[in-house]
C-alpha cells in the first residue's frame, strides 16, 4: 500500500502539469553544460566575469556621481543580478520553443516543456550568480531576516510571472519569427527605464509610482530592494500581482488559441 502511494506520488510529481520534470531537469542541465562545454570553471566563469564587470561599473559610476562605492556596489550588483534573471529569462524565452522544433515534430509534447526547461536553466544560472549576492550581503550591505523572507517570496512571485510570460513570448515567436529582434530591442530600452543603476527615491515623488508600470521594476523592488532593506513600495507589490494575474490570463488565452496547431508553424 505504502509502495503504491509512493509510486503514485512520484509519478504524479514527475508528470505535474503534463510535463516530465525529470526530463526538464536533464534537458536544462544538458543545455547549461553545452553552453560552457570545454570550460573548467563552467558556469562560474560567468560569475567571475560578471563580478569584474560589476566592480568596474560601480567604481566608475560611484566616482562620477560622488556617492559611496560600498552603497552603490551593493545596490548595482544585486540589482543587475536580479534584473539579468528576470529580463534575461524573458528575453531569451522568445527562441526557446523554436529551438526545440525537432522535439515537437517527432513526439507529442506540451510546449510547456521548453518553457519550464528554459526557466529552470535560468534559475540554475541565477543560483550561481547568488554567490555575488552573498558576497554583497557579507561585506557591503545590511540585510535583515524580514528582508530576506520578502526577497524569497518576491522571487517566487517573479517565477510565477515568468512561466506564463515566457510561454507567451515563446509561442508568439513560433508564429512571428522577427519577434525575437523586436523583444531584444524592447529589453535594451527596458534596462534604461528600470531602476538597476539609478534609485527610485531619486525620481521626483510625484512620478515614483509610474516607475512600477514596468513589471521588471516592480519585481526588482520586491526582491533586490527588500534584500537591501530599502523601502518596498505598495504600488510595486500591487503591480507585480496584477502583472502576474494578467500574464496567466494571456497564457490561458494563447494556450486556447495557438497551442493545438503550433507544431504546424515550426
Amino acid at each position, binding site marked *: 500500500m505504502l509502495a503504491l502511494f509512493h509510486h503514485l506520488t*512520484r509519478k504524479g510529481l*514527475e*508528470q505535474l502539469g503534463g510535463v*516530465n520534470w*525529470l*526530463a526538464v*531537469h*536533464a*534537458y536544462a542541465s*544538458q543545455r547549461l*553544460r*553545452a553552453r560552457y*562545454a570545454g570550460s573548467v570553471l563552467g558556469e562560474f566563469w560567468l560569475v567571475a566575469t560578471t563580478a569584474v564587470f560589476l566592480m568596474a561599473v560601480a567604481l566608475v559610476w560611484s566616482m562620477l556621481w560622488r556617492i559611496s562605492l560600498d552603497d552603490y556596489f551593493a545596490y548595482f550588483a544585486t540589482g543587475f543580478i536580479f534584473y539579468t534573471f528576470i529580463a534575461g529569462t524573458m528575453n531569451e524565452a522568445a527562441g526557446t520553443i523554436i529551438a526545440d522544433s*525537432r*522535439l*515537437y*515534430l*517527432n*513526439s*507529442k509534447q506540451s510546449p510547456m516543456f521548453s518553457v519550464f526547461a528554459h526557466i529552470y536553466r535560468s534559475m540554475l544560472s541565477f543560483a550561481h550568480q547568488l554567490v555575488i549576492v552573498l558576497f554583497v550581503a557579507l561585506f557591503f550591505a545590511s540585510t535583515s531576516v524580514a528582508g530576506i523572507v520578502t526577497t524569497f517570496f518576491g522571487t517566487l512571485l517573479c517565477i510565477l510571472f515568468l512561466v506564463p510570460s515566457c510561454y507567451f513570448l515563446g509561442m*508568439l515567436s513560433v*508564429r*512571428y*519569427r*522577427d*519577434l525575437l529582434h*523586436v523583444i531584444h530591442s524592447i529589453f535594451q530600452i527596458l534596462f534604461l527605464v528600470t531602476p538597476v543603476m539609478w534609485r527610485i527615491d531619486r525620481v521626483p515623488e510625484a512620478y515614483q509610482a509610474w516607475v512600477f508600470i514596468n513589471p521588471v521594476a516592480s519585481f526588482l523592488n520586491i526582491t533586490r530592494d527588500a534584500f537591501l532593506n530599502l523601502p518596498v513600495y505598495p504600488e510595486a507589490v500591487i503591480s507585480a500581482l496584477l502583472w502576474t494575474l494578467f500574464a496567466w490570463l494571456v497564457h490561458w488565452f494563447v494556450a486556447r488559441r495557438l497551442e*493545438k*496547431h503550433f*507544431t*504546424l*508553424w515550426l
Partner: protein
Amino acid sequence: MALIQLDKACLDYPVTGQFSHSIRTHVAQVIGGRLLGRKGRWPVSWVRALDEISFEVNAGDRLGIIGHNGAGKTSLLRLMSGAYSPTAGSVASTGNIQALTDFTLGMDANATGLQNIYFRLAFMGLTRKEAESFAPEIVEFSELGDFIHYPLHTYSTGMYLRLAFAISTQFEPDILIMDEVLGAGDARFRVKAEARMNKLISKANALVLSSHAIANIAMYCNRVIVMKSGRVAFDGDPGDATKFYQELVAAASG
C-alpha cells in the same frame, strides 16, 4: 477496439513565405489596411496535406504506408503519433505510442554516452534509478565498451548510431510508428539490430511503418495504405497495394 482511429482527418499547413512569419509585416498590413480603408491582407496561404483520411489501426495490424515523396506519409505519421493535431476531423488513440521517426532525437554531442542514456531514458519517463538499472543492457547492446564514458563528439558515425539505436529500441511500446526501418552499424551489428527490430515489431500491439523500401513493407506488414496527394488511394492486402503503387509509379513515369 481500434488502437488508432482517424475519422475524416484533415491537415492544412501554412505555406510560409518571406513575410508570413513577420510581426512587423502583419502589423503594417493591418494598420496600412485600416488607413487605406481596406482589410489588411495576411501573407499566408494554406495547403491541404491530408484530406479526409479515415481508417482504423487495430491490435495485430502491421500497417505499411507507401507513396511518392510529398504524398503525405510523414504528415500522416505525425498525425498518428500526436505531434500534429488534425485541422478538421479527428484522430483518437489508446495505448502507449512510440514514434521512431527521429531516433537520434535529443542526443547531446558534448555529453558522454552514459549521460545520453540517462537523458534519453528520463525523456521516456524513467527515473534515474530505473535508468541506471537499464543502462548496462544498453551499453552492452551498443558494444561501445569504455567509449561510453567519452563525449559523443569523439564517436564515429557508426558508434553514434549504434548507441541511438540501442536506446531507442530498448522498450517495447503498444503502438510502434516508424519512418523507415531502423538499422545501424557495420554488417555484424546490422544482423543483431535486425533481430532486435524484429523482436520489437513482433511484441508491439500494432505497427505503422512508412517506407520507400517495398521489400521492408512486404516483410513486416500485413496491410498497406497507398497515399496519393494527401488521400488514401488504396487500403488493403500488401500484394495488391504494391501492385497498385507500381502502376501509379509507371503512370507517373509516363
